[in-house]
């Protein structure tokens, strides 16, 4: 890329970073609302958004706790869901290798679905680095502001069940799952995971059936794909 093209590229990257932040903010409102309806205080909801800062894990923790699961089961589910950020980190590592050690410690906190997606969509490293930092920052700000808004709003509502917020938690999980179903093997894994969790629900303490569903991902993901050998 020549230097003349840079201002236009920079403007484009910053625009997408801001757009992604605003969209993700709507998830943040839902997270704040669901956290409070699961029994967390506004401060605790905000602490999760600031310190954990990875949506699916946050939803999982409050979902498991809200359903009466143990803290241990909730934390374990949240960690398993957070493991995909390690893969994003590996994807971003070559890009951020030039940053100082301190900036890399800060960058790690911003390694999430959205910052990775915007970074890897860029054509050159300079735009990719800007995409990562700008999207990470924009999502962080919007996510936390939205969490507070959702949490405060819900605190004012009263009975979460009367407002259907228990169904909203399920809908939120489904909406987080939806874009991942495009992969060929994802649908059987999703149905299998749901079936395992429901079958185990009467037998195991709340929260544990969800963890058990992880086994389905391991069983399906373990064998080498057969399609290539068949020449398909």
């Amino acid at each position, binding site marked *: 890329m020549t230097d003349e093209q840079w201002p236009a590229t920079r403007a484009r990257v910053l625009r997408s970073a801001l757009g992604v932040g605003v969209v993700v903010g709507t998830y943040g409102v839902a997270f704040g609302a669901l956290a409070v309806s699961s029994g967390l205080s506004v401060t605790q909801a905000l602490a999760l958004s600031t310190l954990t800062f990875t949506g699916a894990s946050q939803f999982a923790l409050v979902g498991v706790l809200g359903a009466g699961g143990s803290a241990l089961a909730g934390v374990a589910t949240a960690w398993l869901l957070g493991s995909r950020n390690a893969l994003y980190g590996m994807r971003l590592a070559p890009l951020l290798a030039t940053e100082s050690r301190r900036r890399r410690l800060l960058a790690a906190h911003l390694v999430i679905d959205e910052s990775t997606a915007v970074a890897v969509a860029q054509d050159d490293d300079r735009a990719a680095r800007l995409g990562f930092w700008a999207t990470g920052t924009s999502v962080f700000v919007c996510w936390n502001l939205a969490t507070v808004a959702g949490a405060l709003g819900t605190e004012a509502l009263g009975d979460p069940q009367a407002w259907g917020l228990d169904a*909203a938690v399920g809908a939120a*999980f489904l909406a987080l799952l939806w874009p991942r179903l495009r992969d060929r093997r994802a649908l059987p894994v999703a149905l299998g*995971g749901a079936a395992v969790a429901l079958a185990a629900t009467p037998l195991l303490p709340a929260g544990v059936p969800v963890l058990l569903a992880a086994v389905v991902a391991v069983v399906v993901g373990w064998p080498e794909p057969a399609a290539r050998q068949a020449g398909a």
Partner: protein
Amino acid sequence: MWPAILATSLGAYLLKLAGLSTPAEVLESPRVRRISALLPVALLAALTAVQIFAVGQHLALDARAAGLAFAVGALLLRAPFLVVVVGAAAVAAGVRALVG
């Protein structure tokens, strides 16, 4: 509650940092990649199912299922996240008000 919040946060950060700091070849075996791509799928599907069909250790079919049905329809129509979630809540609350 606070220990769970702090433990979740510490684990989430260390996973992110581990990715940035690990030489790619260590974790980037195709098998690890496949399993970690499928892990969120299995867990989110299980979380959805339990959230909608479980009450403690019992299974139940109630207003929440109507909310989920709305969510599926809305997602098929590519509705935005907030429409999916708020709509599901409204449908469940409506069914509850009518039936319960």
